[in-house]
């Protein structure tokens, strides 16, 4: 546990720069061989919607960025089930096979980490 990293995403995509720079950080952590877990919590579950279609030139499609996390050795992707329910999002709408966590499992999973960052 000593150096395991948890990135807790809680921001919706596009409205702010949180999602982009948080995912950049996750990819670098993966590339550097860190033990990293990425959580999608609260409004960050909107980052996982498959059907995103950015209408502005120069704005990256975040669902594609998230799908590419695996190529940077970021394998532990967790989604808060409660956050999805509150926002009426179905499992079939997500862009990746993420692990859905109940509230108790979410707590237990986050608590295993000693470096926790929130975006």
């Amino acid at each position: 546990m000593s150096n395991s990293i948890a990135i807790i995403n809680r921001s919706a995509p596009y409205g702010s720069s949180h999602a982009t720079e948080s995912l950049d950080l996750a990819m670098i952590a993966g590339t550097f061989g860190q033990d990293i877990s990425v959580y999608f919590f609260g409004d960050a579950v909107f980052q996982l919607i498959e059907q995103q279609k950015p209408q502005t030139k120069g704005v990256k499609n975040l669902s594609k960025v998230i799908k590419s996390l695996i190529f940077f050795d970021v394998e532990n992707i967790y989604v808060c089930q409660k956050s999805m329910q509150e926002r009426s999002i179905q499992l079939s709408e997500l862009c990746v096979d993420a692990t859905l966590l109940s509230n108790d499992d979410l707590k237990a999973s986050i608590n295993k980490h000693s470096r926790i960052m929130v975006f």
Partner: protein
Amino acid sequence: MPLHIIKQSPFDSPSLAQCKLTLSAGDAILFIENGIYCLNHTDSELQKLAENYSLYILSPDAETRGISNFPDYVTAIDYEEFVKLTIEFSASISW
């Protein structure tokens, strides 16, 4: 008669709740940016608002976020129609 522009998520900010406190008959609400996520409210809050106020949604911002089917009580508009709305109403409030 202001046009209320909601640009933040209702789950993450008090924008929608604060806007609701200042609504009067004849007002309209336009959802843009992360305000688009007001459509994800489970409690059919928007449908209730639509009974008394005109609701608009900025179409490119909705498509960016993966929402392309709009409920029939909101009108999807583009930037030119956004400009027209700000002219039609005497004032705007950006929440």
